[in-house]
């Protein structure tokens, strides 16, 4: 794969938590490459470090060692401010739990990344309403999180992740808390947006069937064992 086609390149990454005898090595010698426009599922047993991998790629966490390049830029040495700005413009997140802010309604939650980027309230709200329409929640724009169902909350979270039109979408078990019907609806929505927006997407999932519908599935093995494509 040429450098120009590559959105994510993680090389020889290692990550451990804790100190001394309580130290747990989560990732070790991990390599992962994701092509632009690819939809990749990350699968593996619980506790193997799937969320940690996603946090490292999403610049929420730093590896203890290794190199990370996003869209051809080495981001390993960036400071906190630069990493935050890059997260705002380059990466969209969908977490297992929606993590919407209780104090904001659906529209303001979706508009949040735009306001952080410095857009005016009017422009941010306009874009938020457009996205809520795309995820089928135009009539729920002024509802607060405690007035929305689980599936609706995750759809709002997807809309928020795409507010800044980021090229990279990271989803950490986005259907983990949903029933079968809502899981199917959400995954279809993510896949549709992935195709329409030309995104590069990495989805952590336990669902083998869902992983099978992605372009590629990457199995994360415990530290010391070999991880790779399924």
């Amino acid at each position, binding site marked *: 794969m040429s450098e120009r086609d590559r959105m994510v390149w993680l090389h020889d990454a290692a990550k451990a938590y804790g100190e001394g005898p309580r130290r747990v090595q989560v990732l070790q010698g991990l390599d992962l490459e994701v092509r632009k426009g690819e939809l990749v599922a990350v699968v593996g047993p619980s506790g193997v470090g799937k969320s940690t991998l996603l946090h490292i790629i999403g610049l*929420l966490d730093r590896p203890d060692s290794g190199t990370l390049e996003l869209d051809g830029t080495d981001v390993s040495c960036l400071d906190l401010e630069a990493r935050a*700005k890059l*997260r705002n413009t380059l990466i969209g997140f969908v977490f297992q739990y929606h993590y919407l802010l209780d*104090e904001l309604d659906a529209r303001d939650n979706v508009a949040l990344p735009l306001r*952080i980027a410095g857009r005016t309230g009017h422009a941010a709200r306009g874009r938020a309403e457009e996205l809520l329409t795309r995820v089928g929640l135009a009539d729920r724009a002024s509802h607060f999180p405690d007035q929305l169902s689980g599936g609706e909350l995750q759809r709002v979270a997807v809309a928020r992740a795409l507010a800044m039109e980021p090229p990279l979408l990271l989803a950490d078990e986005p259907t983990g808390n949903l029933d079968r019907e809502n899981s199917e609806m959400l995954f279809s929505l993510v896949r549709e947006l992935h195709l329409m927006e030309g995104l590069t997407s990495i989805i952590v999932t336990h669902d083998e069937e869902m992983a099978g519908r992605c372009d590629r599935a990457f199995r994360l093995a415990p530290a010391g064992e070999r991880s790779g494509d399924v």
Partner: protein
Amino acid sequence: MRAELHLARRYLGRLRRRTHVATVSGISLVSLALGVLALVITLSLLEGFQSTIRRELLQRSAHARLAPASGRVLPDAKALVSVLRAKLPNVAVTEIVSGTCLARSFADAIPALVEGRSNTHRVAIDHILAARLGVGPGEQVEVISSRRRLTPLGPVPVRVRLEIADVVAPEPGRESGALTVPLDVAQRLLWGKPVVQSIELRDPADPWHLARQVRQALAGRFPGLRVDGLQQLHRSLLLALSMERIMIFVAVGLMLVVASLNLLCNVAMIAAEKRTDLAVLSGLGLTPSGLRRLFVLLGLAIGTIATVVGAGMGTLVAVTLDRTHALTLPRGVFIVSSVPFRVRPEMVATVSLVALGLAILASWLPARSVARRDPAEGLRYE
């Protein structure tokens, strides 16, 4: 900044839905407002008393005094008075001669200050001397000078018998008795010739800058002259007043510090409760400096509400107590009949700025630790 402002507004607006944070925030707000209120009322009370003292000082004391730098007599006093009257036509100029004499009545004989003034033709005795000699208006006092004159019987002290016209309050800061007499009487008693020892000046329009005006008017034409303004004449009293104000400000200001510590705990509590939200905000791209700003804005908002409420209520209470004379004082003991309050806008502004500064500091400390947190940490512990 827009996002931080928006979030701070929404957090505070929806705070009432979160009972315990709302309660703690309310307590922080009330304690800070009480601190501001206490400081405004206390300083207004202090300012009320101090302005009464300053007013009395201006009414009864000279605003500037000219005296010889060395020696006891002003050289060329007549020319000096003419220049002053010509250059400063709106300033009252009084020539003075003073010295200690023995004042004697039917009851007692005690040393007293005798002050001859060119602006009076009546004899006035102050309360202190009047009480000691047991005399009042219309009664006579014999004043015996230490100066002697030669008579066929040998040297005898110069003495005059004076009828008291007025009993007046003593000059501020004076504790021994004094007798005020016409200038020529004092000159005859103390010197036997028309000398002037000092010149007092009064300018009610601009008393605090009179000494400077006098120095400019004289322009070095009379060397060997000392010009003292109010600041020099009453240095220790004015210093004591300003020290008192500073000490009271610091002592009562400690209440604000305690209230700010309360606010610090409150903001730290919000930071702990919002750990996940903050991690998500960071994940969405809010920079560490943005997170710091968000928390400082929260503290500043609570501080601003508390300051406005505290300063407003403090001013209202002080003005009401002053206008209604609600707190009365025993008659004859104090120079005022009720507790005076005086609200100075610059004083309220200083208190408000200190309160806001402390509120910013109190919210900046937890904000700093929030900004240092790794975003993944907040998500991991959820």
